[in-house]
């Protein structure tokens, strides 16, 4: 395992070195993402110029939520972007065959194929928003809170990873599944606002079935006691624990589901040919 991580890091470092030769692409891509972020923020400030809270969250709390979401998505784009190519191409032209004939786990090889340097944009904005909002929230944010925040960043990344893995695996049967991945990915847009503003149908989609709501919204509630957790009623004294348990179990369930479907898909192609 340590050996594999070492190989992974070496290859990634070498890829970054290769990517450095395309500075123009990088700048254009970054600019695109930055503009996108700015539009979201401007929209948010416009909304909050008329109201004090959105779904029970103040501007600062929403900024915290968005910051966390951007950071997690930025990390996901950074290391786990190439799977889009395989999902859309359906592991085309024997790319799977190539992975199969190399002495490494297949998914790791897919990850190794690309580091998306454009992710620097959302990651930087995410960190900035988190820093500003934590500072302005006037709550005591101690070491434990930072550890919990780091944990939520991790579980958020696991959830995104697992959802993409499940959908990408389907392309091993269907030939391609990029379109479905795109459709599911659209639901991320709903997490720019607190999940509490939506009706129960959309809430259950975002909190159970396509659990993007657990990437940033539910973790944010860990620090905001005034907003109830949608769909669930939890006694106030065990609220923090409940949120941790909820986020943890959804991450684990989806991760296990993802690796199961992936393994089944690989087995199926080993029978039907690549």
């Amino acid at each position, binding site marked *: 395992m340590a050996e594999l991580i070492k190989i992974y890091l070496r290859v990634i470092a*070498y890829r970054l070195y290769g990517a450095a030769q395309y500075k123009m692409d990088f700048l254009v891509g970054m600019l695109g993402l930055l503009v996108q972020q700015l539009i979201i923020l401007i929209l948010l400030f416009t909304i909050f110029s008329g109201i004090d809270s959105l779904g029970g969250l103040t501007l600062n709390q929403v900024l915290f939520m968005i910051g966390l979401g951007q950071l997690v998505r930025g990390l996901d784009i950074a290391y786990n972007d190439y799977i889009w190519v395989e999902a859309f191409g359906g592991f085309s032209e024997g790319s799977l065959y190539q992975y199969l004939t190399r002495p490494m*786990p297949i998914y790791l090889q897919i990850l190794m194929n690309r580091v998306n340097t454009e992710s620097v944009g959302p990651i930087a904005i995410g960190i900035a928003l988190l820093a500003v909002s934590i500072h302005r929230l006037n709550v005591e944010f101690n070491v434990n809170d930072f550890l919990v925040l780091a944990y939520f960043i991790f579980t958020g990344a696991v959830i995104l990873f697992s959802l993409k893995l499940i959908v990408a695996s389907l392309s091993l049967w269907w030939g*391609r599944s990029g379109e479905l991945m795109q459709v599911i990915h659209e639901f991320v847009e709903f997490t720019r606002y607190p999940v509490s503003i939506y009706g129960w149908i959309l809430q259950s989609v975002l909190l159970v079935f396509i659990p993007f709501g657990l990437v940033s919204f539910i973790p944010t509630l860990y620090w905001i006691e005034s907003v109830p957790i949608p769909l669930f009623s939890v006694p106030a004294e065990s609220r923090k624990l409940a949120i941790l348990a909820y986020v943890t179990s959804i991450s684990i369930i989806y991760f296990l589901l993802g690796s199961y479907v992936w393994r089944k898909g690989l087995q199926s192609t080993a029978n039907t040919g690549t």
Partner: protein
Amino acid sequence: MFGEKVCKVQLIPEHKMNIIEVSNITKNYKVSKGKSSFQGLLSSLLKNEYSVVNALKGVSFNVKEGDICGVIGLNGAGKSTLIKILTGAMYPTSGSCVVNSKVPYKEREIYVDKIGVVFGQRSQLLWDLPVKHSFVILRHIYRIEKKKFEDNLEYFTKIMGIDKFIDTPVRMLSLGQRMRAEIVSTLLHDPKLLFLDEPTIGLDLIAKSTIRRAIKQLSEEKGTTVILTSHDLDDIDVLCDQLVVLDSGKVIHDGNKSDFINKFRSNKKIVVEVDGQLDLKQLSKNPLKEASIVADNTYSIEVDEQTQKLSEMLKELVNELPIVDLSIEENSLEDIVHSLYH
């Protein structure tokens, strides 16, 4: 002195071990009858409606360590299917194989560390980046020591003649250049076995001969066992110790190359087109009596060069017949597959 003796013992061919043992492998593909892939999935879940393609029907053969084994056959004969099973990418439906003391598809990750695979129709190199870049990444993947990597890079770059374009992006290479780079990329980790699925497809004569020479050299100097599939009989002629002919999923010939050369490659065909007015039976000596009819007024005559002289045959034909057109052809793969049945 002592060292030399040991060496000689090892060089005796009888001592060579089987590095590949294939026994009775079959492979059936299920092809779903549904049209779109999604419908296909649904219908195969609900109704189990599919047709079966028997791509391999009980294939058995062995390959000795260090040999070059050619697998030839017409389109759809099962060559690529066989290679996919031998390289661990696919399970056989039944039967088994042991390669380099491993069952490829059961111990994939360990097994593939010691093999190299080239797939003629598809590039494994990074499209936008210089050739060298792909090599460095492979160095990490196969955990090749720096010294060994540099030695091998120099060695293979030389025998494949790719030094001139090693810093050129792959997308700017010609097919022949790319294929040579492709082969180098699979050799840097010193594989014990090299699998080549149609390495010479679409290449010109010069590129083909460079690749053949390099494979030959590789086999002689490094002792690498090579399995290659091809449509090109010249590949077999120049390279192979062993020849396996596949037809519709069955082995119809398995043996050494010289048998094959004697039987088929020394034979030629003379194809003549004669003036249509000719009445064959009227001829005193009839050189066409052994001929088969290819088209209207066009005949093909087999010449076995071991018993007949091509030049005498030609002289006879030209003297006797009102010839419109004449050509000398080698046996094609189709001819050989056809005659192996008789």
